[in-house]
């Protein structure tokens, strides 16, 4: 038998029908929705006069457009409030389970799906959100879709989709002290560029990946989209199964042991062919930071901003990007003042990220020139942080834990960074104005964000770990 990749194995087993010269009709096991990209899809169902085909296969949360303080009060912004109410109304009308605002299981869609045990190995998963690739950490084929496609899935539990090409990224070696999963993926994107994986689905493997926790794996898969990939996945192993076995709703399933056996078989065969392969050595990877306006513009924190040839095709875009950031080619940004620090998002808003941040700021004080936004990814993460006493550590250091949501990652709510201000952010995108009109985002790990928060400037986290 021809050796199969994990991606092919999952994709092919979900094909309802292949269209000659066309896309596959792909069955979707788990569909997640949120308030921003679903209302127009429900409008479509209403116009057609059809129900949701499989309501129990869709799960809803409010996360993008909600405040991260005083969540018990009505949302102040009228349009945001309407959007959140519309989601609740649609879920009620179509029989979809909603973890809305103030529900103890509310949180960012890509944080709660895995933590509540809805994301399981071998599944196909979609959501009207590009960071759906996060769920690939559990050995799933998970990818972001548009609203028309959300409507397709609501109407038929299927989607028309062309099969992407396959890429394998191997990261071997030991991840160094002060370096995190975030630095690994920022390094990979800086090498492959913001469009280096367009048209591909990535499988991550190698010793460094296998040694990562589920939180770290989710951070890696989450940012697959930032190099253009359709998605990224990591084969399930003992780490995956240990994580899932801690979730009561998964552990208590009558078919749990049968499922575990099946999950263990879900991997790429020896000799399976990929369209492209890249190899990295974790020992080469230092703490990373971005200096431009796409996630491919990243460098090791102690490096200088690259100088590119004036005749390069992308020189106009490159110069525009640096001008926006207020940087110059050849400049080092270590020691550059920082105004804001954001810890959170579906990339780095999990308990391990809060622990890393807290560990770094413990016994220190927030720099007076820094405004910090510490936003847990879900109510469960928030509760766990409190249970572990992280909120005390943060408070003693001058930080305040906010309530969960997407927050300053896309700044749809009030959590906006003012124009011209520099923000060291653990989120996933440094696009112009992403954190608010005119804001300047430097993507980095929770450790680097914490180091900036206590020193007030861009700081190599390894220097503080030495103390």
């Amino acid at each position: 038998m021809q050796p199969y990749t994990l991606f092919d194995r999952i994709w092919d087993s979900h094909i309802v029908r292949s269209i000659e010269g066309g896309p596959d009709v792909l069955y979707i096991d788990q569909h997640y929705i949120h308030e921003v990209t679903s209302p127009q899809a429900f409008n479509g169902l209403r116009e057609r006069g059809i129900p949701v085909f499989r309501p129990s296969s869709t799960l809803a949360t409010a996360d993008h457009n909600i405040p991260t303080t005083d969540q018990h009060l009505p949302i102040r912004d009228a349009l945001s409030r309407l959007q959140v109410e519309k989601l609740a109304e649609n879920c009620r009308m179509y029989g979809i389970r909603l973890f809305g605002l103030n529900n103890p299981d509310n949180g960012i869609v890509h944080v709660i799906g895995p933590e509540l045990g809805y994301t399981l190995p071998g599944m196909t998963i979609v959501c009207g959100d590009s960071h759906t690739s996060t769920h690939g950490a559990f050995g799933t084929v998970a990818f972001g879709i548009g609203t028309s496609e959300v409507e397709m899935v609501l109407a038929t539990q299927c989607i028309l989709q062309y099969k992407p090409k396959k890429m394998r990224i191997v990261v071997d070696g030991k991840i160094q002290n002060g370096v995190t999963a975030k630095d690994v993926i920022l390094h990979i994107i800086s090498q492959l560029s913001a469009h280096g994986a367009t048209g591909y689905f990535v499988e991550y493997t190698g010793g460094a990946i296998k040694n990562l926790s589920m939180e770290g794996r989710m951070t890696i898969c989450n940012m697959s989209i930032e190099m253009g990939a359709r998605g990224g996945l990591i084969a399930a192993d003992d780490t995956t199964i240990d994580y899932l076995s801690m979730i009561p709703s998964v552990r208590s399933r009558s078919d749990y042991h049968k499922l575990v056996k099946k999950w263990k078989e879900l991997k790429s065969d020896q000799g399976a062919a990929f369209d492209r392969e890249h190899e990295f050595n974790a020992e080469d990877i230092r703490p990373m930071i971005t200096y431009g306006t796409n996630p491919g513009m990243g460098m090791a924190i102690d490096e200088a901003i690259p100088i590119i040839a004036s005749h390069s095709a992308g020189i106009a875009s490159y110069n525009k990007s640096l001008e926006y950031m207020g940087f110059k080619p050849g400049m080092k940004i270590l020691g550059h003042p920082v105004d804001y620090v954001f810890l959170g998002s579906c990339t780095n808003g999990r308990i391990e990220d809060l622990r890393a941040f807290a560990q770094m700021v413990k016994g220190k004080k927030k720099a007076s020139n820094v405004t910090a936004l510490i936003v847990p990814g879900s109510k469960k993460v928030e509760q766990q942080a409190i249970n572990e006493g992280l909120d005390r550590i943060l408070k003693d250091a001058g930080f305040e834990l906010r309530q969960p949501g997407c927050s300053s990652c896309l700044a749809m709510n009030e959590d906006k960074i003012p124009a011209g201000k520099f923000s060291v952010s653990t989120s996933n995108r440094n696009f112009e104005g992403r954190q608010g009109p005119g804001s300047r985002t430097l993507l980095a790990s929770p450790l680097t964000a914490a180091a900036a928060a206590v020193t007030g400037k861009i700081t190599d986290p390894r220097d503080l770990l030495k103390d």
Partner: protein
Amino acid sequence: MSKVRFELLETTCVPLPLENIDTDQIIPARFLSATSREGFGENLFRDWRYDKSGNLSKEFILNDPRYSGQVLVAGRNFGCGSSREHAVWAIYDYGFRAVVSSNFADIFRNNSLNNGLLPVEVPEKYLRELLDLVRKNPGTRVMIDLEKQLFTVLPAGESVLFEINSYKKECLLRGLDDVDYLLNMRDLIKAYELRNTADK
């Protein structure tokens, strides 16, 4: 629900010679709170079109009266970032019917095809020449023939063949909708579900 058919297009172009134009630039997140598909064109490229005080930015190409037309020509990796279909709705609502680039982000491409906005992928070198030509000669007319998959600079300029999969081409030409297509397959989908439950 049938959609608008993609007719033969003959028009002028608007050149936007920047790479990696992300969907946050096309339509910033603060304009995504609407619950309908209409009206997004008003905020297309909002933070490039208007300055901090809300006045038109004279240097931005959409505000330059010399340039207009139904085709937007932009640098590679167009539409990267967020999956927001609002970006396509904004471009279409503004009046564009096709975007020409050397490389489109996957989700943006799918969203475009699902809304009758044609993504025309051309070689990088051709794109750069086209951007130069249109910038220097704002009146340059182009023709997009979807049936023949040809992009042509008029009156008799160089034609370039562009790729589009046959299914989506058919959908655009005939104004067909994916949801209708899938709804007709419900029996097949149910059979798949039965087969799969049996496996477990």
